[in-house]
């Protein structure tokens, strides 16, 4: 009986280890109106990371730049990824394929600021998406 219980538990753990969610947290910022919106698709991430600040300006070349401050709500180190995308005034993503997820190691109860620069003068809205890694 004991062996059967251990086997069942071991199998359940093996299957669970393969489960990964790519749902994350997104913040959309409109650089023309200054409005921002938060979308959270992962409860676990919601309880672990908070977007505590958003600032934006323009670089000397005239392109929009955005800074997002991310704060850890837990004490353990977290391995995350984030991607900052840019959209034009029609809501179409600019250079979607060239934008990549960047790794982010967030220490317990720490805050970091991540920055993104638009790759086109037509970019007026930025969006950061944060997700967990395995």
């Amino acid at each position, binding site marked *: 009986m004991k062996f*059967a219980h251990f086997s069942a538990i071991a199998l359940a753990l093996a299957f669970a280890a393969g489960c990964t969610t790519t749902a994350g947290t997104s913040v959309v910022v409109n650089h023309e109106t200054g409005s921002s919106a938060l979308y959270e698709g992962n409860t676990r991430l919601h309880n672990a990371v908070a977007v505590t600040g958003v600032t934006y300006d323009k670089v*000397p*070349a005239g392109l929009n*730049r955005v800074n997002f401050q991310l704060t850890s709500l837990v004490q353990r180190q977290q391995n995350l990824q984030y991607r900052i995308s840019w959209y034009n005034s029609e809501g179409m993503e600019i250079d979607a394929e*060239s934008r*990549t*997820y*960047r790794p982010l190691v967030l220490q317990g109860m720490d805050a970091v600021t991540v*920055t993104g620069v638009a*790759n086109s003068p037509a970019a007026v809205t930025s969006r950061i998406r944060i997700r967990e890694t395995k």
Partner: protein
Amino acid sequence: MKMHYIAAATMLLASAGCATRSVVVTDPDGIGTPLTSKIEAQDIRATVEKMAESLIADPGVLEVTNGERPVLDIEPMQNRSQMIVDMRSITDSIRMRLIRSRLFRFVDRSTAGADITIMDEQAQLGLTDRRKAIRPGQQSAAQMYLTGALSEITTKAGRTTDRYYKFSMTLKDLRSGEIVWADEKEIRKVASRSIF
């Protein structure tokens, strides 16, 4: 009853091993879990994006060119690491990102041979209207050039391997010889082998 549990567990384990090979089309931005402690595709993509953004955002470049779009060239990055990495592919990606920003203009000396061949054909074969043929000596000159290097420091201790990589890039003004911009991207990975 105990044998039923053991049989079921054994069958599940055996069936899990049946699907040993599968191929799936995945996003170049996949989940991002490192497969090894070496440089991987997501590291290259992140480096290209960071370098391009840093160059675009730097005010020093526009100061040197008085706000005009400078003409750049790229020297292939040097590979000082122990890995086999296509450095030309990395510089091509950076150039592509900078061109699409519409803030820079580029020349490519690596295709100069092809340029000369085409111009010679236009001038000598007689197929091209001579008034429209492109003559040598009219191309733009590079005002600055990008160069860089990939270096590696590997430390091994027991079952743990610590690899540190550094991509560094500089932009140099050909006229003054000054370095106008410089940046670097550090990547560090630690891998441990299991006991069993």
